[in-house]
């Protein structure tokens, strides 16, 4: 066990830092969930990252990456958040679909989809949940009927993040007549295909964060199925593990937020009771604890381990940490917190997004069931 970076890792950090200092936009980009302009500004940033070969550093070079290990991915993320670089508009692609495709995709699929994903040329949305299938994802009813070399997709998806402006989606569909975990396939489809209709859903703050997707006899080639026919559940669960466990929420995000919280606290310290220091310190400690846990997880993965149910403990920890952190910021701001223009750092926006943390990527209630049943061995309900 050794908690010091090698000289090569330190040099890599400085290389990332130098690139970020030159290239991160000085002004915050407009939201990617409000207007096409904001979305395209983020796509431009993805392309810039890709030009610097920073699109997805762990991917092989031939797919647009740098072939780096997970420790360097963590260092990259640390410098990314330290530089307050824009949120990745393609996170559903690079962090969820990408790793799933690495594991389950054919060579042809990898060549076709991954370089364009790393380059920001194709921005992806996730199409899993349905009005009747949220926590109980095996309840999806949208269908993929095989017709020769094509599937015909029908049904309705909901809560698809980024789908308002995204280019493609990956969705879970079932063979007509199949039940529960059987007969499902993971299928990739363009969001501008004939028969696809998108309807934005406004979040409580007015941003069009998600969309409903209606599919009416949408035809896609069988070659655009990821993983085996009828094996969609297995493929999905692997993706869900990435989502909760590691890639979607890198620890640097919370450490940078904790650093900003400490800055906020220090600017307002003279008007705050001493007890506020403990709440700030708790958020800072929790962010560091999450980082240490992820470093340990990455070390285990590098030694050939896998992510098991601990992806569920991660998800509970980061979502609760994020909520407590932003609540502390709002309490420091006091009466300014509710004002639309009261705080240039926009902690209110942060809080609203943090509220979703215990819901998306599998609700925390479901995660607690997974921990209880798969880690602790308690009986199913």
């Amino acid at each position, binding site marked *: *066990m050794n908690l*010091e970076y090698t000289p090569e890792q330190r040099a890599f950090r400085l290389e990332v830092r130098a690139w970020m200092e030159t290239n991160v936009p000085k002004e915050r980009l407009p939201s990617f969930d409000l207007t096409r302009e904001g979305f395209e500004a983020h796509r431009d940033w993805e392309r810039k990252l890709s030009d610097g070969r920073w699109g997805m550093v762990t991917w092989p070079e031939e797919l647009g990456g740098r072939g780096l290990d997970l420790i360097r991915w963590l260092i990259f993320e640390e410098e990314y958040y330290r530089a307050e670089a824009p949120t990745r508009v393609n996170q559903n692609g690079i962090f969820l679909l990408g790793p799933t495709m690495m594991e389950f995709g054919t060579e042809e699929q990898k060549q076709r989809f991954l370089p364009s994903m790393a380059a920001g040329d194709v921005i992806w949305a996730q199409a899993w949940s349905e009005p009747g299938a949220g926590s109980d994802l095996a309840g999806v009813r949208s269908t993929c009927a095989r017709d020769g070399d094509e599937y015909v997709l029908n049904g309705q998806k909901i809560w698809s993040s980024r789908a308002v402006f995204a280019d493609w989606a990956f969705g879970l569909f079932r063979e007509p007549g199949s039940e529960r975990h059987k007969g499902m396939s993971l299928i990739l489809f363009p969001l501008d295909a004939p028969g696809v209709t998108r309807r934005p859903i406004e979040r409580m703050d007015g941003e069009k964060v998600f969309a409903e997707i209606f599919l009416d006899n949408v035809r896609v080639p069988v070659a655009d199925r990821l993983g085996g026919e009828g094996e969609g559940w297995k493929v999905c669960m692997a993706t869900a593990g990435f989502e909760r466990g590691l890639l979607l929420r890198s620890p640097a995000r919370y450490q940078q937020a904790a650093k900003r919280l*400490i800055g906020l606290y220090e600017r307002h310290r003279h008007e705050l009771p001493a007890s506020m220091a403990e709440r700030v310190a708790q958020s*800072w400690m929790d962010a560091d604890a999450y980082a*240490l846990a992820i470093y340990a997880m990455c070390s285990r993965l590098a030694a050939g381990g896998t992510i098991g149910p*601990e992806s569920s403990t991660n998800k509970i*920890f980061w979502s609760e940490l994020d909520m407590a952190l932003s609540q502390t910021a709002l309490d420091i701001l006091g009466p300014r917190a509710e004002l639309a223009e009261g705080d240039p750092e926009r902690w209110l926006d942060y809080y609203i997004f943090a509220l979703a943390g215990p819901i998306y990527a599998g609700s925390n209630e479901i995660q*607690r069931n997974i921990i209880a049943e798969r880690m602790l061995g308690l009986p199913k309900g």
Partner: protein
Amino acid sequence: MLFAFTEDQAAITEAARGMLIESCTPADLRRLLANGEAIDKTRWQTIIDMGLLGICAPEDKGGLGLSLIDFVGIAEAAGYVALPEPLIEMAGVVVPLLASLDDKGWLARVLAGEIVAVGHPANPLVSEADGAAAFVLSSGDDLHLVERDAVTLTRVDSFDPFRRLFCADWAPSAATHVNGGWRQTAQRGAVLAAAQMLGLGQRCVDIAVAYAKDRHQFGKPIGCYQAVKHLLADAQVKIEFARPVVHAAAIELPLGSPAAKARVAHAKLAAAEAADLAARTAVQVHGAMGMTWEVDVHFFLKRALALKTAWGTPAMHMAQVIDRMTALPTGPEHTFAASFEHG
């Protein structure tokens, strides 16, 4: 950068853990209490024979010359069984302390199984004192190595029946004075208390899980109900995110820097919170039985409560964390204490 135990570290821990779990069952703890015995002499001899006391002793003094990180898993296992023998204090605290002092031959005697008790200013009372052959005590900034017959002990009862605490009355003299200081003794004590609390917390969860599978209400094991599952899952989450902090503290402690000290403080806070939640959850899952002497949870709950304030209180450790947080840079590039060594 490698945040994982080596195969050697895992093997040493596993050997010790296996022995402790097999020999130190709750039934064994009850047997010791019924017989009025403070420790199990057979197990203590096994601990000596396995060389566990010398893990952190220098190689030229008959030890393995290993570091705190090599011992932290054993401390977790000792907590898991609520070990009555002073393995952790001797091997993890006293041995490295004696190795840094003019030890007058006491290091070799500790490795052979004699007990040297420590009266550190962080702890108001001296533990294990009745079985001690000598003491390391402080007078002002000076350390003294005092033989048993020069100390008058007054027992102070703890509600943990296996903690034997004493007031020590003694007089410093030129003959007892030894060169050296406490150095990192309190931080080592804190990290090892934290590691034991991880084990104590995990044991509380495991006992409660076993009970929740067995106890039926409304025709089903209570562990089927989400209300019970979620209590236990929350306790497990706390343990999972305290453990890497404790491991990091064990590695970073020797740096001695403010960042390393704050990590130790964080480890102690996080492990105490995890053990506390796990113990309270175990009582709750057992219902009224959880309040009884008959159910084993109380052995672990009591030890966790005692260790929470050993080697520094939560309030003191929180103050250390706040000092570091405001005095040194924070942010994603400062996860590790070593980041301050390299500028």
